[in-house]
């Protein structure tokens, strides 16, 4: 369990994080969404023990993460801005990581290098940005981390490699109960991979939700009645309504069985439950939040 409690972080006179709370369940994938400058990298650097917070606490399994090498041995972090030792190739970096991380898995390393098809002996500085990201991913995943922190992990990766990356992540989550925190400025990328989502804006956590719970509670429905009924959607908790001729398009937040029961009681001419994208869910959930957050969704 990774917990961030009431964390403040200031850069001189600029408040980067403001009373931030965040909870990542063990064995889950948490997506941290926010625009550029929202504070994603700042909180990630605080979680990985790079930055010291001004206020609040960040713990992993109850232990403070700052300056805690025992926790860091179990944590893998791939920053957006990668760093390798000057002049080193992947093999040399692997040798260093192997000496540093007690759970280093040489077999996995060999397999991953083959699968990602990287030249071990080529200097990392000569790799493309995407290849460097792959190299960093191989190194970190081979340390068999219990906690994986990824900052914009798939930027610069082609779709095939993206799939491969997510495959490894999902497998480790499933098999080893690895806990993952992944940041992105694009909600679409997080759909289908994350168990929970947190939306960050100007250093504040705007919303934090479990996706399964979210999807089971918000529904998009089409309804048409033969005759006009007074208050036809009473008790549904309508978030959004659109009239398209005689057909009404509704976004409602309620249990599926409750929605079906209320609509069916009024004997509609047409009643359909349509699939909702994650983007739509957030648009209607967030409702009145600022344009900056809207920008994340599209």
């Amino acid at each position: 369990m990774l917990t961030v409690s009431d964390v403040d972080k200031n850069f001189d006179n600029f408040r980067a994080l403001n009373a931030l709370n965040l909870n990542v369940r063990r064995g889950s994938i948490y997506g941290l969404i926010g625009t550029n400058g929202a504070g994603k990298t700042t909180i990630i650097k605080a979680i990985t023990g790079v930055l010291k917070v001004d206020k609040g606490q960040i713990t992993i399994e109850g232990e403070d993460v700052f300056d805690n090498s025992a926790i860091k041995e179990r944590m893998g972090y791939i920053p957006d801005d990668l760093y390798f030792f000057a002049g080193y190739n992947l093999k040399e970096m692997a040798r260093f990581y192997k000496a540093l991380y007690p759970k280093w898995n040489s077999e996995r390393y060999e397999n991953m290098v083959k699968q990602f098809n990287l030249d071990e002996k080529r200097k990392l500085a000569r790799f493309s940005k995407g290849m460097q990201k792959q190299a960093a991913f191989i190194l970190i995943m081979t340390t068999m981390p219990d906690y994986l922190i990824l900052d914009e992990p798939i930027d610069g990766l082609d779709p095939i490699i993206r799939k491969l990356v997510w495959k490894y992540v999902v497998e480790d989550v499933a098999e080893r109960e690895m806990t993952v925190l992944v940041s992105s400025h694009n909600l679409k990328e997080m759909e289908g991979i994350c168990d929970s989502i947190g939306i960050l804006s100007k250093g504040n956590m705007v919303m934090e939700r479990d996706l399964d719970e979210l999807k089971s509670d918000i529904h998009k429905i089409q309804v048409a009645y033969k005759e006009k009924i007074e208050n036809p959607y009473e008790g549904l908790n309508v978030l959004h309504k659109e009239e398209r001729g005689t057909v009404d398009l509704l976004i409602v937040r309620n249990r599926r069985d409750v929605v079906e029961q209320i609509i069916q009681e009024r004997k509609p001419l047409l009643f359909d439950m349509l699939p909702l994208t994650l983007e739509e869910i957030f648009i209607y959930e967030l409702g009145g939040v600022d344009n900056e957050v809207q920008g994340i969704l599209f």
Partner: protein
Amino acid sequence: MKFKASYFSVSGTLVKENLRRFWAIPVIGFLIYFLSGVFPILMSYSHLNDMSSYIEMCLNNKQPFYMIAHLLIPIITAVIIFRYLQHTSSVTAFHAMPFTRMKLYNSSLISGLIMILTPIIANGLLLLCIAKPAYQMWTYDADLMSLSTDVSGLIDVFARADILTWMGESIVIVLVIYAISVFAGMVTGNSVMHLAMAFGFNFLVPALYGVFILYCNYLYGFDYSGNWSETMLGSSPYLQVFTHGGEFAIGLIIYYLLNALVLFILSAVLYQKRKLEKASDAFVFKFMVPIISYLVAFFGMSLFGFYFSVLGGGEPYFYAGLIAGAVVFFVLGRMIVLKTPRIFNAKSVKSFAVYAVIAAVFVTSIMCDLTGFEDRIPNADKVKGAAGGKFVGEESGTRYYSELYLGGSGMHLIQSFTYTSEENITALVQLHQDILKNRAAFEVYNGRMSYLKFSYDTGSLLPMQRAYSVPTTFLVSNAQCKQLFEGKEFKQYYSLNNLNYTRMISINFNDPLTASNTITVSNQNELKELMACMEQDFQERTYEQQVDVTHMYANATLNYKMKDERGKTKDSNMYMEIKQSDKNTLKWLEEHGYSEQFLLTADQVESITVYKYDYQEQQNESYDMATMDQKAATIAESNVKYGIEEEGFTITDPEQIQLILDNYMQNATDYNHYYYAYANLKPGVFADGRDGGYQSDETMYFNDDNLPDFLKSVF
């Protein structure tokens, strides 16, 4: 549960990796020491005596490449090892790895230490392996020069003890430079600034001290050549090498090592406090911003102040320079530390106001002597020991260098020899008071001055030191000076019997007018007799005889063997004057036929030309020239230019020439009014092959009192 980090934890993995990554630094360091030290020695291994001076230079750390390596290797190592702190990507990567900050700091520090110490230790071990006696063959002792098998009196400069000393001193030097450079890395946010500050901080204390001394020169009586310069250079082990002796006393070594230790601990604390998000800024701690801005402003202000005062030559120029320098360099410094030219705001104005107040208080306290420095004289009752120098009159040379005598060390005249008797201390304090009373007159006096120093041991940590330029004429007539010179304490200490020598090799004599013509006394029996005569003359000499303005009888150079502080036998020498009143010495030289060999006589002189200088007359002539019409002025100016009006009075009569040779002074006493003369020597006088027609090596001077009568009628 809070994780407790060990303060001494080190990651072997990181140390190994650092050494793997930066192996080139110790290798280059090794090669510099090897190629400039061990290699040339090996090249000349079969005739090592020829290399003795070079070996000594290397082992005394005065070899230029050694000094470059001592400075650059630790600075570059610190900058490269801690480079990861100065970039956002590397600082993130390193601190996300399973290290505590303390472990990262310790591991990096130790990696650097290994890298800077390995080249020195490796070369030291090589030197120890190849060490064999190498003797300095240059000596005054002709006997030893010719006896290649007898090396008992020669100095072995390549002993194992010397090599171990070199290793020890070199390690201390690089350790302190490295500690300062690491500290610089902790407060800076990028590598360029780290490098600049590593250099700057290494010389900051001596530089601040030096500038402070420059300001203190405005204080009447401030002794800029006293302990100050030694202290200034001694504050850095790197500069200590260039001090008078260059030795690293045990106390000094402990001080340097403590300095390094404190800096390492301070750096560790700062590392813990360091905000890693500040990587790539100029400085990572806010408190450094005003400190660096003020330091830059202070040095700039001082530079402009002193430069302007040289240009204009007055205090208004000095103050104008200070103000201009303070403004210009404060702006510059602030731009550098904030990494932006946008510094013109209320915050900067406020910061400058603070600096201006501090600077004004500092400058005012010195210029107006707010601390009462100038008038402070200790109470004679409270002085345990006191020393004064140069009241011995015009005597030049090293005759009164206290370090040359048994029990002497440190700088000449002040440090070693001190008066401890009550009456002498009282006399010295009285002399000091007399000088302060006459300050106004001394400051406008234009004549021969003596630089007189006072040093009082008042029981405090540092002695109270003062120095004054005093007219020599004032000293000649001063009763205190007479007591100080003729007293038992002075005569006992500066007795030739107290000279620190093991064997006198030779004494050279020459006439003051023909310094290049030298005769040498080297017979041991003769030397013994001669030394006895010189000692007797010194003991019988009165202060009036000591400060007599008439030229000396001869220059004497004593060449001898002595034992230094480390017990090593080495060559030394002392330059002294043989006074006209030294009857015993003169008699001995005449009886043994030496005088006629070097003394200049009238029959060797073709002619003597005497000139007169009078400041007032020259001023009047300039005024006359200025009031002439254009054409006349041009002619007169060209006459002056080509020396037509400067033609002096030439004497060829042998009797008159001898009179001049007997009575001249070696220096003018009143610079506003004096006579000067040059002797034109006959062919064959100069032993170095110069032919006749040449002027004497030195100028002869007269004043109105000792100018021969036949010349008075001429001028």
